Structure formats: C-alpha cells, structure tokens
C-alpha cells in the first residue's frame, strides 16, 4: 500500500513539469503583454520594465530562470499589482477559496450520497422520479444564473440573506455562495450514486446476501455501500478540484475575496507571473486530489492494491 502511494507521488512530478512548460509558452503566445495600456509607455520605460521583470532575455532562458525560481519556492512578483509577490497574493486568497470549496464539497457530497442511495432504493417509484427531476435543475442551469436568481429572490425581495461581500465571521454571507457552489456537485454525486447503487443491488453477491437473511439495513450498509462508492469516489477527486478551481465564477458574482478574482484579472491583464502561479496551484490541487482518490480507491476495492 505504501509503495503504491509512493509510486503515484513520483509519477506526478513529470506532469507538474510539463504543465508548467505548456502554460509558460502558451501564455507568451497570446497577444499583448502586462504593460500594454490605453496609452503606450515611452520606449525606454518599457525597456526598463522588461529588464526589471526579466522579460528581455530569450524565452528559453526565461523559462529556465522561472523553473529554478519555482524550485526554490519563488514564484516571482506580480507584474500588474506592483509590490505584491505571487506567493503573497495566493496566500491572501487561498484560505478563503479553500474554505468555500470544502464547505460546498462537504454539503454537496453528503446530500448527493443520501439522495442517490434513496433514489436507488426506491427505483422507479415516486421518490426516485422526484429526485431524478430535482437533480437535473442545477445541472442544466449554469451557476452564475442560479447565483443571480438567488441574489434577487433571497437578497433583494425577501431580504433573508446578504447579496454579497464578506468580512471574517460573516457566516450569513457564505450561505448562498456555498449552497450555489455545492448544488451541481451534489447533483452529479447523486446521479452517480443512484446509478452505481442500482447496479450493485442487482448483482449476484447482493442476491447471496439476501439469501442469507441478513435484512435490508445490513445488506445496504455492509454489502452494497462499499462497491457502490467506487465510481462515486473516483468522481470526488475531480469534483473537489472543480469546486476549488471553479469557484471563481461564484466568487466573482458574490464579490468574495478568494483566489478566483486574481486568476481572472491576471489572465485579462497578461500578468504572466500571477497566471502561472495560480495555474501551478490548481495543477497541484488536482494532482493531490487524484492521488488521494487513488489511495481511497485501493481501500474500497482490494483488487486494486496488488496491481
């Protein structure tokens, strides 16, 4: 089990390197640069700026410099938000994004699992039909639209919840963003759980368990849950990374101080250092979660361990 985990960690290293390289060069292919504005800067100012930010050397050399910096833990300065390093900006925004993402993940996963298992248990009866329909809603309506509708209804008309913004400790401000963010995730989890649970309930080994007179509760809790979770778990890793990296839309709509804001503005401003820094962070999150999923997977399905 430990060797298996170690092998997975080592195989992640080249992936990180390749992603950085691809991002680095693609970013430079995009037209425009960090110092383009309404008014063109005087040529000598521009030259000084480019020299200061190490943009005057040949591209391959810049890449080598950047990689060496990253290896030392230095992601360079932001080129648009003066006086801030990329690492500093990330450390300001990341905790909030993590909190938002994990809260949405926990709520969405729990609700999705329960809803999916219930739907499977009542397959083709009214609770199943109801759940299948309800679950479709957050999947077909994009979350920025949902977010705006929720703001209008609960924030403006009913005045139950604040429309946006956040100060530390303002839990009520988080209710809408977390719920909006968790809904599509919960819906996908519910659909996956329903499907795999229905499949598992029809297997020969569940029939064997019934032939032993174990009773519905024990069959569900001991015989059906673990195998039924396998496809769900393999979605949870990517699911969490969607929540952590995809919360930027919700952060924008609700004016929240997360990392998504930096990512969007950095991409628009061609803030090379900040885009690369946040991208590397996202890649790291995705890889770490996939690794975690693989390990949980090995626990759920003993056959995986010895491959």
């Amino acid at each position: 089990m430990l060797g298996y985990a170690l092998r997975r960690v080592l195989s992640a290293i080249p992936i990180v390197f390749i992603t950085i390289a691809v991002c680095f060069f693609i970013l430079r292919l995009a037209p425009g640069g960090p110092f383009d504005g309404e008014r063109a800067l005087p040529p000598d100012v521009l030259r000084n700026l480019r020299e200061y930010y190490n943009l005057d050397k040949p591209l391959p050399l810049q890449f080598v410099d950047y990689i060496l910096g990253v290896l030392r833990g230095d992601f360079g300065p932001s080129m648009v938000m003066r006086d801030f390093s990329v690492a500093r900006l990330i450390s300001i925004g990341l905790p909030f994004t993590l909190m938002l993402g994990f809260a949405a993940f926990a709520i969405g996963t729990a609700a999705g699992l329960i809803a999916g298992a219930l739907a499977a248990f009542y397959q083709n009866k009214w609770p199943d039909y109801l759940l299948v329909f309800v679950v479709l809603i957050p999947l077909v309506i994009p979350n920025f639209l949902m977010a705006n509708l929720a703001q209008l209804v609960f924030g403006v008309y009913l005045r139950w919840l604040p429309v946006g913004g956040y100060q530390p400790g303002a839990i009520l401000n988080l209710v809408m963003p977390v719920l909006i963010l968790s809904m599509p995730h919960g819906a996908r989890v519910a659909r996956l759980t329903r499907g795999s649970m229905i499949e598992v309930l029809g297997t020969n080994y569940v029939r064997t368990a019934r032939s032993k007179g174990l009773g519905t509760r024990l069959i569900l809790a001991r015989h059906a849950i673990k195998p039924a979770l396998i496809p769900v778990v393999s979605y949870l890793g990517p699911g969490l990374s969607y929540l952590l990296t995809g919360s930027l839309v919700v952060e924008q709509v609700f004016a929240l101080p997360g990392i998504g804001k930096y990512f969007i503005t950095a991409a628009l401003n061609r803030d090379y250092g900040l885009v690369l820094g946040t991208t590397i962070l996202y890649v790291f999150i995705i890889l770490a979660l996939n690794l975690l999923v693989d390990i949980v997977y090995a626990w759920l399905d003993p056959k995986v361990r010895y491959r």
Partner: protein
Amino acid sequence: MTNVLVVDDLDVTFALHQAEVKAVSDLSFSLAAGETMAVVGESGSGKSQAFLAIMGLLARNGRAAGRAMLGEVDLIGMPGDRLDAYRGKDIAMIFQDPMTSLNPSLKVRTQLAEVLVRHQGFAPDKAGRAVIEMLERVGIPEPVKRASAYPHELSGGMRQRVMIAMALLCRPKILIADEPTTALDVTVQAQMLELFKTLTDEFGTALVLITHDLGVVAGVADRMMVMYGGRCVETGTVDELFYDPRHPYTLGLLHSTPHVAKRAQRLDPIQGLPPSLERLPSGCAFHPRCAFRFETCFAERPQLLPVDGGARGRACWYQGSLKHEEVA
C-alpha cells in the same frame, strides 16, 4: 419420513413490457428430510425461478403465487423482513457462479461470520472460530489464512467451497444448489458433489440439486423432477427415470447425454429448441419436439398423474411403451 418442504400449485409470473410471462405453472412437490432431489430441465424450463420464488429472491418484476410450506409457515407472499428469519437458517441457497456470488469487497471471514451472528446470536469473535472450523470441513487448506482473504484471491473451486460453507453454517433443513458445478472444472465438479453428499448426509439437510447435467444427477440424487416449459413433466426415483423413463422428454434427455463407457456412440439430441415462455405451444408444451405425439397432444394439456399407482408421476397422453422406439 417427514416432509421439510411442501410446495403446492406454485406459479411464477414476470411482468414484461407488454405481457405477463408465466415461468412456472402449477408446480407441486414435497421434499423429505435429508433426501436429495434433482431438478432437471433445459434453460428456461423454470427450474431456477421456482426455487428463487421459494427463497423470495425473484427479480423485481416477478410474482409468485401458491404455497410453499416450510413446516408450518408459508414462504410464498411472506414479506422480506419475515422471510429473513428463515433464509440462511432453515433454507439456504448456493448459486451457479461462484465468481460473482461472493462480495468482492468483504473478506471471506466477514461474509461467513455474519450468518452466525444474524441467526445464531454468535458474538463476532466467537463466530470467527466457527467459521474456520466450517472452512476446514469443506476442504479448504489453510483455513485461517483463507478466512482473511478476499474472494478474488481464491480459485473458482475454492470460492464454491466457501459458498457451501456459508450455506451450511446454520445446518439448514434444506439446501438449494442452483447448478453448483456448472462453472467449475470437471475434476473439481466430482469433488464438489462428493462434498455435498457427505455434508448434507451428516447434517441431515435435504438437498435440491438444480441441474441440466444428468451425470450429476446419477451420482448423488435419490429422486428427480423433470421440468419442461415451467411444468413438472415427470417425477420419480433416479433409478426409475433412468432405466424406465415414461415421458418422451425424459427419454430425450437421456439420449442427449454422452456415456463415457459407450464410446463412439452417436448422440441423439432432442430436435428443435426449448419453447419461448411467451408463446408456449398449445396442449402439451413438448408436442412440437415429440416423436410420440398424436392429436390429443395438440389440443389438451396432460396432467401430472401417478404412474402404476406408485409415487412416480408423469404428464403425457401417450400410453404405449417408449422402449421399442428407443431400439428403432
């Protein structure tokens, strides 16, 4: 001898999209304590569905009617939670495919111990010891090690032994084995049948052996029941049916079975295919494939009636001897 199971007028129907299909019709039989009864028939003859219905394990669209008396209680129509008091304890079942019939995510020990905990009130740690004893009884080498294994770490034969151990843990009155050897190597099949015989004899368990393999029947069964199109067409002791079959279908089955002793003899299979249950032939369901048919067979269904006033029975209109036809 006392009967442990008396089945009366068992019907099994499945609701399909358009129509209802009757998989088992008017099935009646009784099973004496400790005896071995073989249930023989082609695929789709209803032999498995009849016993799945008795166990309350029909698919969601299946319905059973009639009676199946286990002592004083009727198993048919009993809700699942009440059935659970008998399933696994008084009446147990082994399935055809040992590869998929054990839970892949649970250790062998867990899957066996839970039966004892559920039905015998064992404490989980004490159940572990009983499980290992039973694994040893069914001939599993290194039972302590195997108990901690997952099913995928065992061979097919080993898994079927685990299934047998699981079914016999509570020393049930009845064991239903649905094609228990079909998925196994021939060499393992013989060992497995031997094991069935030894253990059911020792525990006084009545064995129902569902099979299409007459070789299996000859080795272990006392009585047999031949099914065709969801009905019992002939029943009697194994010797009676093997040496003096009175139903053309039984005769056909015997002729379709290769004998190792009579080498180079050509097989004489039954012509045609088993009928679709959705459109069973009129009259006797076997008439389209029967060499002895005459007008009555097309129009009226024969009842299962006693033969020679004895315990055997058959459902056939033909009164002549099947013997000379066999010679010809």
